[in-house]
């Protein structure tokens, strides 16, 4: 099983763009160590629509060139220390967005269109600092400026879910941003709590919450693979561990020490 995770990590090559889900939707923390061990850097992270611990760790490990996000924090445990430090140092490029703009960019990719319009944004410094976005006059009503968000097409989407079947179908329940990431991405890598023998598409009840294998490049089993984040319907967040990380990662040294433990304990070679 650790081999599976390492093999999945190897699909990520330097400079790729990676879509990663919001804290509560199913973060594949289990993939964090293999990604850091693998060491593909210069990554462009797309947070769907915000990021947390995993993003902070990848930044701290020096693998990140750009973060595209609506926010980055450790929630109750406070700010994301390695991110905040990198911003102050100018060590990463930050593409500040707003949640529905990230969703709009992914939806444009899902629909195979070059852009999606979005309300709001006009007059904000979010828009002013995104030269890759556009404002046009609504072609259906003159004098009505509307912002356009170009398609976001991540090379790889990575997330964690409760279960998958042997055909590669993944049960995501009502966390449909995970499907949105997969539709938009070229390839999707998934860790799950368990792999089940029956087909998730065989009955309409499980099918309703299933991402079809068509979009899934690889699946690996990783029990408690969201830890220290929680997984809906499975287990709660480990806030103490998040606090422990938040305190340690305030300095580069503290981060290095924490990560030595994190990298060692998780997955025996």
């Amino acid at each position: 099983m650790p081999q599976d995770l390492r093999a999945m990590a190897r699909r990520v090559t330097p400079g790729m763009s990676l879509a990663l889900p919001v804290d509560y939707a199913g973060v594949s923390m289990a993939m964090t160590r293999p990604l850091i061990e693998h060491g593909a850097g210069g990554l462009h992270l797309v947070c769907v629509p915000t990021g947390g611990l995993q993003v902070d760790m990848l930044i701290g490990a020096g693998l990140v060139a750009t973060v595209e996000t609506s926010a980055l924090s450790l929630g109750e445990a406070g700010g994301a220390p390695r991110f905040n430090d990198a911003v102050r140092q100018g060590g990463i490029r930050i593409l500040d967005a707003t949640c529905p703009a990230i969703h709009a960019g992914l939806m444009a990719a899902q629909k195979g269109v070059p852009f999606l319009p979005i309300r709001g944004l006009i007059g904000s410094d979010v828009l002013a600092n995104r030269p890759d976005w556009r404002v046009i006059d609504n072609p259906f009503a003159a004098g009505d400026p509307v912002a356009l968000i170009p398609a976001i097409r991540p090379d790889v989407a990575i997330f964690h879910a409760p279960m998958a079947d042997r055909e590669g179908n993944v049960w995501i329940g009502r966390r449909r941003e995970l499907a949105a990431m997969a539709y938009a991405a070229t390839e999707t890598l998934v860790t799950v709590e368990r792999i089940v023998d029956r087909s998730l598409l065989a009955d309409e009840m499980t099918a309703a919450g299933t991402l079809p294998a068509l979009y899934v490049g690889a699946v690996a089993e990783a029990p408690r693979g969201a830890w220290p984040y929680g997984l809906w319907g499975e287990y709660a967040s480990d806030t103490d561990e998040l606090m422990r990380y938040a305190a340690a990662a305030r300095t580069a040294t503290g981060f290095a020490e924490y990560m030595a433990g994190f990298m060692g304990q998780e997955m025996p070679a």
Partner: protein
Amino acid sequence: MSAALPREILICTIARLLDGVRHVAVGASSPMPAAGAMLRRALDDGQRPVRLSVLGSVEHNFFTNGSAELFDSAGQGRLDAFFLGGGQIDGQANVNLVGVGDYPQVKVRWPGSFGSAYLYFTVPRVILFREEHSPRVLVDKVDFISAPGTSAPGVYRAGGPVALLTGKALFRFDKARPGFTLESVHPSHDLDEIRAATGFAFDHAETPAATPAPDAATLSLLRGRVLDELAETYPAFAAEWRSDLAALTREGSPA
């Protein structure tokens, strides 16, 4: 029943600001807005259903289409009220959730704009809520506009700020002027203190009103049903509140 705690006055003020809403959303770590919304729902029981969405919560989440659905429902006009905080809020109701200093290499970085740059435009009743009332929060001009308080004519703007509630006072926002007007001062605070703590100019009556304390029935609802309900989602906040109530009872009791 003992006198209202400062946080109870805030919660009751929030419930008053939510009068008439059908659907209100609050952020994940916002126990006071959530309590205000729960109180609103309790007050309206039997007359009007009030739906409450707590972002990131499993219990208070009736959405089934991922994290985009909140924004979609706002775009459809199905979200009546929302709360925004802000590391900085200025006199034009511009909100800064990004950081202090020159962007992008800010001196102090906050998490980011979240959905503000969208929800501020689409939700009819946005309540600015920040307990800290100080010149570093309430500034003359924000360093970064995550979401602007007002828009030029012609810009689609179905929503926007209606009020600013802090630990010291309640302001109404007038988008025509634009600017804030001091509506009421919370008990144990006064105009001079508020003037000193506010980095922007605001209108006010010569003698501003006091923020009303809840009546006994409301307070009873708040400390009963609402506190119980809140404890399910915000156990730490509810426990602290209960402990303050216990202290209040000890102080007030004849023993």
